[in-house]
């Protein structure tokens, strides 16, 4: 489908480039269809309404926050001597740290991409 669309656009370009008057007459509606089907090539994120990159980021931040909360609770229990094993506290804290760092690096990436787009010459 999309390959045909590219072929159609390619044929149209090839036809219009050498001469002002198209040598091969192609009906305008067919052109429009070809261009419309070109958008099939794009990633389909535009169809997922309301679930953008930022929403996903905010969702994952919620999970990270829950992790920070639970390891904070574990640290309090450790300090109060209520904890059974030290390694679970430490592993939980380490996991939370890594997840937080992952979220931070995702945030930095998204922000970089946004700034890159904002700097774009129009």
């Amino acid at each position: 489908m999309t390959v045909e669309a590219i072929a159609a656009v390619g044929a149209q370009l090839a036809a219009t480039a050498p001469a002002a008057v198209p040598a091969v007459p192609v009906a305008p509606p067919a052109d429009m269809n070809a261009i419309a089907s070109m958008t099939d090539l794009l990633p389909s994120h535009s169809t997922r309404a309301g679930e953008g990159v930022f929403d996903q980021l905010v969702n994952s931040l919620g999970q990270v926050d829950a992790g920070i909360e639970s390891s904070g609770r574990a640290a309090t229990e450790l300090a109060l001597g209520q904890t059974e094993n030290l390694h679970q506290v430490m592993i939980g804290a380490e996991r939370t740290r890594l997840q937080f760092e992952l979220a931070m690096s995702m945030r930095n990436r998204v922000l970089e991409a946004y700034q890159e787009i904002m700097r774009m010459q129009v």
Partner: protein
Amino acid sequence: MGMFGVLDISSAGMDVQQARLEVAASNIANSRTTGKDGAAYKPLAVVVRSAIAEAQGAAGMPTTTANLPMPVVAEVVQQDVAPKLVYDPGHPDADEKGMVALPGVDPVTSMLDLISISRGYEANLRAFDITRSLLQRTLDLGRSR
């Protein structure tokens, strides 16, 4: 299971080694614990089973890494070891022949157990450490510029 799941596996391994350490320490600490009429302390042992096999039997064993079995301490059992009989007629727990039943805790076996526990815990720590440093280095992948 994912990279973060590997941390859980290491944690379960450390749980098991910790239970073994608790039991070994208890055996050593109770090596002089006596009791009347055969109620002396019996050396304890930890039975470790796979959480999946425990629930579903051999049929539940994994064929992918999606559901790897976690080791769990299934139970703590008393070892059937003959007590060491020591002649001590003045002891309150001595029988009519003056013999006192001391727990059959073998000091050499206990020391070997401690070494094995220590190495086992270290091995789990190492697995955790490697997973952690791989995760960290993967995260640093996005920072190079």
